[in-house]
């Protein structure tokens, strides 16, 4: 087990490094910079600004400084647009918000998806099953940027039940619509994957044996069927998690929640490269970490995997 974790880490670290280098090179290759505005600055001023941000240094110096800053101090450097703020400040402001609704969306999608999928598989071809299948087919065409306007239309414009946006420290009325909008399509996919893998497991011999021994159904499902049935789902959870964090971009645009999505899009339009890079690297790190956890879980649950 230990050597497996170490081996996976040995893949994860270079991946992260590639991501950092890739985004840095992209930024370096960019024609024009954040200081090329419509009214050109006097060359002396521009030179001063570039010296302040270290933009006059050679490529190798800049990239090694940047990587060193990120790795050693978790320091993503200053923002190019906001003079008094560093990228770290911006992340510290936006990330907790994103993480809050991202976490709840993930929990909601997983719990409801797994429950619905399992229930549908147990009661195959019942009304519950048809409901679950109908939902999982219908909801997969409802990505967050489709769900969000529909929710806003119904619950804010027509019914007036929920506030149309804002964050307010994450109080629940402000949390409901972002979480639902973000989780619906993933919930559908999780329910579908869970249903088909549970159906497969329920048809195996060891489940029939367990039932023949007279073990109550609930116990058969929870103790025997759940573990192998959840395996195919695990590999989907990584991408789903990434999708929810990425969805922040849309959620923030619709609900003005002020997560990292807001800052990412704003910095994309104002060419604030250091903020964009910081957020990309942060999300990439999370992705890689999450995939690592999933892989380890996978190896831990599935006895067939040799590590």
């Amino acid at each position, binding site marked *: 087990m230990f050597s497996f974790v170490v081996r996976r880490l040995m893949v994860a670290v270079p991946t992260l490094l590639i991501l950092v280098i890739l985004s840095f090179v992209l930024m370096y290759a960019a024609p024009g910079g954040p200081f090329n505005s419509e009214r050109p600055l006097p060359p002396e001023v521009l030179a001063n600004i570039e010296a302040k941000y270290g933009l006059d240094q050679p490529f190798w110096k800049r990239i090694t400084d940047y990587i060193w800053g990120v790795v050693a101090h978790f320091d993503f450097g200053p923002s190019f647009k906001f003079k008094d703020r560093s990228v770290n400040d911006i992340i510290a402001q936006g990330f907790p918000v994103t993480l809050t609704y991202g976490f709840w969306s993930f929990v909601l999608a997983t719990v409801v998806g797994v429950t619905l999928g399992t229930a549908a598989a147990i009661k195959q071809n019942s009304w519950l099953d048809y409901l679950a299948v109908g939902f999982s087919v219908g909801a997969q*065409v409802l990505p967050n940027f489709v769900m969000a306007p529909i929710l806003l239309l119904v619950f804010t414009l027509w019914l007036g039940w929920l506030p149309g946006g804002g964050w307010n420290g994450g109080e629940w009325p402000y949390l409901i619509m972002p979480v639902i909008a973000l989780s619906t399509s993933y919930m559908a996919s999780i329910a579908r994957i869970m249903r088909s893998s549970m159906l497969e497991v329920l048809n195996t011999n060891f489940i029939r044996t367990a039932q023949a021994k007279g073990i109550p159904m609930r116990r058969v499902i929870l103790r025997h069927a759940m573990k192998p049935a959840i395996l195919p789902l695990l590999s989907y959870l990584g991408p789903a998690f990434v999708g929810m964090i990425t969805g922040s971009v849309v959620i923030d645009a619709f609900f003005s929640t002020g997560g990292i999505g807001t800052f990412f899009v704003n910095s994309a339009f104002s060419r604030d490269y250091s903020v964009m890079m910081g957020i990309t690297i942060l999300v990439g790190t999370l992705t890689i970490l999450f995939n690592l956890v999933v892989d380890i879980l996978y190896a831990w649950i599935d006895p067939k995997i040799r590590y």
Partner: protein
Amino acid sequence: MFPNRTTVEDIENAAALAEVQGRSLWASARARFMRNKAAVVSLIVLILVAAFALFGGFFAQWERDFVDFSLMGRNAHLGVPSFETGHYFGTDNSGRDLFARTVQGTGISLMVGIVGAMVAVLVGTLYGATAGYFGGRVDGIMMRIVDVLMSIPFMFVLILMLVIFGRSILMLFIGIGLISWLDMARIARGQTLTIKNKEFVEVAVATGVHPLRIILRHIIPNLLGIVVVYATLLVPNMIIFESFISFLGLGVQEPNTSLGALISEGAGTMQYGTLWQLLFPLFFFVLTIFAFFFVGDGLRDALDPKDR
């Protein structure tokens, strides 16, 4: 001694009968697909949507980039969808005909989806088949590269690229092409691993056929079934992906448009009472995605009966 006449006829008849009954893989797949009502209906819907995108322009009463200044700012009252004014789907905020815009948006969204799927089929299949066929260290390195690429949050990198190198359809295609082939490569590799141990491949190897030729002539044709299925399922994902980017205003740029861009516009103006701006593009978006998913599911059931 000689088999009598009737026996010979029987055998001949039996042979003829067997010929009738023996179906090719594709024929039986077609039969299975045709039995799946949802898939057939979806296929018809898809053809209709494609026809709408291709020929809808002929029915539009207005040019798609004609700005009717008399409607501007009074859209909620004057831009209502109606047959009398010729604005079947109403007008948008700048007084443009939404019907013509939706036709254009549907076309571009479909194109993005299909191009994305084609890149996936070409690059992904070749890559995966090569990795699977050679196996060993080559396979290890090639698939490790895929693993590494997969754990990069491409949505963010793509947005970074769109900002840095400018927003254009070409850049969007490059970005989508970069991402879409990864899954296909994995699937193709998995299939190749089982195919490469079949006798006909062994024969080809024994007779000294060049490896590249074996991959192109013997492996890839046998992958086609599963590749077609995943390509169909990939198209809606690519459309969703493009819509997401266009929704942010980073994808397709004016005067071009896509369903995502139209939905974004409609969502931004819904509080002014111009709901049609949201609902018509949304309808075509949902319809297209639905139809692709159902056709893909139908194809999967038809071509890959094991996978239930």
